[in-house]
């Protein structure tokens, strides 16, 4: 468990402030708009940044007092990482493993097999696709089987199959460990997330189960197919998603009442819920 107490950190134009929070084992999904403080929170949790005030306790241990111990249990995949392009995949992972104090070649071989990196062992990193490079970035974080795994936008650059594989892998990995993921594409994590951590403008708005987060919204989600003329009448702020069909528009929108006979009420997804909460906040000013 990670406990945050009176946490404060100035990050650019906003200040991240979390009075008290406890993050439990399982897959935790950090959600929030751009600039809400997701990356700052992750960098604080990974000990890459030190808080201006407050404390972070990892299973009761303070980061400042036990830094090497805590870092021995942390794996991190940054949103943007440019791996050493001139190194071969096998050599890079061996280097990363040794840097983390892991001198067991089987740990590397096992992960390379799991992430289907074996064919690229002798390839230079710079010659590989973005998706493969992203897989290497994930593998380096898993080398020491850390108890705390942090991933900032891990699905960036991955194709559909790679995304599905990673989500399934992380779901299994999170059993008995803590995995914290910051993501924009929320629906992909729908089945995997045990906890939602919602950050808005540097403040913790919600931490708890995704189901409860969905129940907390006052509005509903509607979906239907309408004519283009009707589509133009819909206020932009209510639109969640739209897609052109042959001559009509398939629309997903939020609202307390049924917008029209063409619309059917739908169970909100995580992404819908995020929109609904953001919309409610905007209305409240």
């Amino acid at each position, binding site marked *: *468990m990670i406990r945050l107490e009176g946490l404060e950190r100035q990050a650019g134009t906003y200040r991240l402030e979390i009075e008290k929070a406890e993050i439990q084992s399982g897959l935790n999904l950090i959600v929030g708009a751009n600039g809400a403080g997701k990356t700052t929170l992750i*960098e604080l949790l*990974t*000990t*890459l*940044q*030190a808080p201006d005030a407050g404390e972070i306790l*990892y*299973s*009761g*241990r303070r*980061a*400042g*007092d*036990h*830094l*090497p*111990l*805590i*870092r*021995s*249990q*942390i*794996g*991190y995949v*940054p*949103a*943007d*990482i*440019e*791996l*050493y392009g*001139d*190194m071969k995949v096998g*050599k890079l992972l*061996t*280097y*990363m493993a*040794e*840097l*983390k*104090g*892991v*001198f*067991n070649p089987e*740990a590397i071989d096992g992960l390379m097999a799991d992430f289907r990196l074996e064919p690229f062992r002798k390839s230079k990193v710079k010659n590989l696709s973005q998706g493969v490079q992203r897989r290497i*970035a994930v593998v*380096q*974080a898993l080398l*020491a*089987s*850390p*108890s705390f795994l942090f991933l900032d936008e891990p699905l960036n650059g991955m194709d559909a199959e790679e995304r599905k594989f990673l989500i399934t892998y992380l779901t299994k990995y999170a059993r008995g460990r803590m995995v914290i993921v910051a993501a924009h594409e929320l629906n992909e994590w729908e089945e995997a997330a045990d906890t939602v951590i919602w950050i808005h403008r540097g403040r913790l708005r919600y931490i708890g189960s995704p189901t409860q987060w969905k129940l907390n919204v006052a509005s509903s989600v509607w979906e239907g197919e309408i004519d283009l003329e009707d589509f133009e009448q819909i206020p932009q702020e209510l639109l969640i998603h739209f897609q052109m069909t042959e001559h009509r528009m398939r629309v997903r929108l939020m609202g307390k009442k049924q917008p029209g006979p063409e619309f059917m009420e739908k169970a909100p997804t995580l992404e819908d819920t995020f929109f609904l909460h953001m919309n409610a906040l905007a209305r409240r000013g």
Partner: protein
Amino acid sequence: MDHPFDNELRRLEDELRGPLRRAALPSPTPDETAQLIASLQGEFNQLRIEPESPKLDFNPQVDPPSLKQILRSQIRLNQRSILLTAGAVFCMLVMLIDPEYPLDQFAGLPGGIFPLITPLLLIVSMLFSSRTWDKGMRAVETLTPYPPALVLYTRLLLVTGIVVGMALLSTLALGLRSIQAESSRFLFGPFILEWMGILLVTGGAAMYMLFRKGMVYSLISAVLVYGMWIVIQGQIVDHGVSMSGKMLTDMSLLVIGLILLISSYGRSLKLNGAWRLAND
């Protein structure tokens, strides 16, 4: 009008009323409920105590950190650019220096161009290899079970080792050229002492300041030490200091450099708590 079936039911109820009354338990009174809750209060209190989260231990997958292991990992890093640059610079120096008069003055300084260029090469190599320019990679390399500054220390030590190794090879090449030219002016000992003294004191000063004041002060101190050495060398020429006196000065610089390097190692081990150094 009563139905025969109803009469049958009524009769059955009358017959069973007595046995059922004996079997049925009366509802508990409010007092009894309160008593029961009071007697269970201890159990409730136990449940309310927050379960202590298990203490976190050092990762069993990870070997205890040591300087040897971290050096091993750093050697894996591709140092080709430094090797190539240093190789090119030293090749040029070996070719430039006249084998018949290898210790001739350069720009008014005794000892020639070799000791003048070697520390500069070290400063530049340290600047370029201390850490990666990519923020993501830097973050990942910071998250190790080692004291954060130790990774940086070993990397700089490795760079110093590369430059010293290359300079030694070049000295050997210069010596061979001198022998071929049948020059008696090349003295291995004083020559090595001269460039190694200033090299180690410059590198040592840079590392000493790096772990105390950060990268900018480290660079400033290295440049200052180098500048002061040039001034001292000028004084040596002006006052005609003897060879033994010059060797003593160079030996002092070498010892000071070594002390600074060892002191930086000690400092890098102690920088556990101040994790900002590794991130700023």
